[in-house]
C-alpha cells in the first residue's frame, strides 16, 4: 500500500450516474477484491478520501467504476483527462483464489471488484443484478469478460434479463465458491439462501482505509468469539462463515 498520484486518462459516464475512471501511473500491483482510497478534493472539503473497489489493473493503469451518490463522488465525476488525483492503493485483503468453477455475484456497484476478479478467473458463472436496465452495466461486462461465460442478468423491473431480486435467480451449478459484492441487504439475503462456501466484499463507511482509525468495523466470529474487526485491514472480503449478519 502506498500514497501515489494517478493521471486521469478517462472519466466517462457509462450509465446515468455511473462513471468509469481510468488512471495512468505507477501503481503497486493489486489483486481482485482489494480497494483504493481516492481523494476527491485538493481543498479541505470534502475532507476524507473515498474507498472504491478496484475494477481492473494492468501495467501503468488502474480502473474504477463508481456511482455518484454524494459530494465526494460528484467532485470525482468532474475530474477531466490530464488532471491528477491522489490515491492510496492497494488496500485490504482480496478474494481467495479457489480451484474449480466460481459463482460471481454482483449487485449495483459491486460489479467493480467482481469484474476485476472475472478478468483473472478461468471458469465462472456471473450473476449480476441492478434496479433496471439503465443501471445494469452490460457493455462493461461484455468488454471485460467477453461472451464465453454464462451470465445471468437480473433487474428489479425486468427491463433487462430476469425480473426480480438477484437472490431469486441464483443459478444452479457445482460451484467451488461464490464471490459476492453488493449492497448489504442483498449480500445478507444471498447468505441466507446459498449453502456453499462464499466470500463477501463489504462496503463499510471508512475513515482512513489503512487501519489507523477503527471506523469501518464489521462484526465477525473468530475462534468462537464475536468481535469487531476493521474491514479495511481484515476485509473488505470476509468468509461467509465468519460474518455476523445483523
Amino acid at each position, binding site marked *: 500500500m502506498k500514497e501515489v498520484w494517478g493521471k486521469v486518462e478517462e472519466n466517462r459516464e457509462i450509465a446515468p450516474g455511473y462513471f468509469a475512471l481510468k488512471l495512468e501511473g505507477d501503481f503497486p500491483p493489486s489483486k481482485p477484491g482489494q480497494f483504493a482510497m481516492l481523494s476527491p478534493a485538493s481543498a*479541505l472539503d470534502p*475532507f476524507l*478520501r473515498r474507498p472504491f473497489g478496484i475494477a481492473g489493473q494492468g501495467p501503468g493503469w488502474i480502473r474504477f467504476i463508481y456511482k455518484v451518490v454524494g459530494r465526494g463522488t460528484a467532485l470525482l465525476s468532474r475530474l477531466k483527462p490530464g488532471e491528477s488525483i491522489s490515491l492510496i492503493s492497494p488496500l485490504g485483503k482480496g478474494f481467495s483464489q479457489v480451484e474449480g468453477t466460481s459463482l460471481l455475484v454482483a449487485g449495483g456497484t459491486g460489479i467493480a471488484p467482481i469484474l476485476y476478479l472475472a478478468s483473472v478467473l478461468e471458469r465462472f458463472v456471473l450473476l449480476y443484478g441492478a434496479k433496471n436496465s439503465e443501471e445494469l452495466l452490460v457493455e462493461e461486462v461484455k468488454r471485460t469478460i467477453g461472451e464465453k461465460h454464462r451470465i445471468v442478468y437480473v433487474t428489479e423491473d425486468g427491463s433487462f434479463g430476469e425480473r426480480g431480486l438477484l437472490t431469486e435467480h441464483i443459478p444452479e451449478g457445482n460451484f467451488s465458491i461464490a464471490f459476492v459484492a453488493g449492497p448489504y441487504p442483498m449480500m445478507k439475503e444471498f447468505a441466507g439462501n446459498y449453502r456453499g462456501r462464499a466470500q463477501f466484499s463489504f462496503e463499510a*463507511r471508512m*475513515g*482512513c482505509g*489503512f487501519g489507523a*482509525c*477503527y471506523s469501518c*468495523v464489521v462484526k465477525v466470529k473468530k475462534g468462537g468469539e464475536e468481535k469487531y474487526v476493521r474491514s479495511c485491514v481484515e476485509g473488505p472480503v470476509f468468509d461467509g462463515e465468519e460474518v455476523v449478519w445483523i
Partner: protein
Amino acid sequence: MDLSVNVGGLRLKNPLILASGTAGYGVELLPFMDLNRLGGIVVKGLYPYPREGNPPPRVWETPCGLLNAIGLQGIGMEKFAREILPGLSKLDTAIFINACGEEDEEYVEVVKYFSSFDGVAGIELNLSCPNVREGGNCPALWPEWSYRIVKASREVTDKPIIAKLSPNTGSLVEVASACKEAGADAVSLVNTYLGMAVDFRTRRSRLSTLFAGLSGPAIKPLALRAVYMVASSVDIDVIGIGGITRGEDLLEFLLVGARAVQIGSITLREPSAGIRILEEAVQLLKEEGYNSFKEIIGRFEIV
C-alpha cells in the same frame, strides 16, 4: 536549525507528535513514512483489558471535519506491550501511551503497568474521550475528577504525565490548573468537540451513538483559542491539538503558547501528513529568519 522542543520534562526531536486515535498503534503508518522523523507518537487509547468499542457506523464526514464515535476499541495494555511495543520502542521517536479507564483505578492500573517500560517516553491520560460515557461525560469536564485521576497516576509513575483535556466544558482553565496541582507535567488539548449528525430520512443519528466527537480543520480556530487560554493563564506545558493540516497551523499553535503539537484527522486523509507538515513548518521558520521552533513558542502579542 534546531528542531527540538522541551515539553513536560522531555526533549523531543521536533514538535510534531501523532495524536492518539488517528495513528492506530503506530505500526499502521509504517508503510507511509519514516516514523523516526517524528517528534513522537501517541498510540491508540489503552484500557487494562481489550475493549470492543461502539457499534458501527462510527464515523461521519462533516464540512472540513469528521465526527467519530469509535469508543476506544482496543487490544488492551498487555497485548499491546507484548506484541507491539517492542517494535515501536526501537524507533528513534518518543512513544507515548494513551491511558484509559472506566473507573479511576483503571487509569492508574494502565499508568502503573507502563511505568516500568523503558520504551515508553510518557503517558497521556485520556481524560476526555466523549464517546464512552453517557451524554459525552468525561473526567476532563470536571476539575475535581481530573485532579483525582492525575493525582493517583502521579503516585505510581515517574514518567511524564500529560493530561488530555476536553473543550466541552466551561471550566477548561480550572481543569488545567487542577491537573497541574495534581502533578501533571503537561496538558494536551483539545480532544474532540461534542457534535451530532442526523439523517432526516431515517430520523436517526448518522452514528451508532447520540453524540460524537468533531475533529479536523473545522475546529482549528476554536482549538487555537482553547490552547491560548490555557497557555496564557496556567503555568503548565501545553501540547496543542486541533485541526492542524499545514506547517503554518503548527507554528500558530506554538505562537500562542504550545510547546509541541499533535496532528490527528489529517493523518486519516494523508497518512504521511506528519512529515509534510513538519517540513513546511521548518521551511516557513527559515524564511522568517528563525533558528529554532523554541524561538516562536508563546511569542504571540496582543495589539
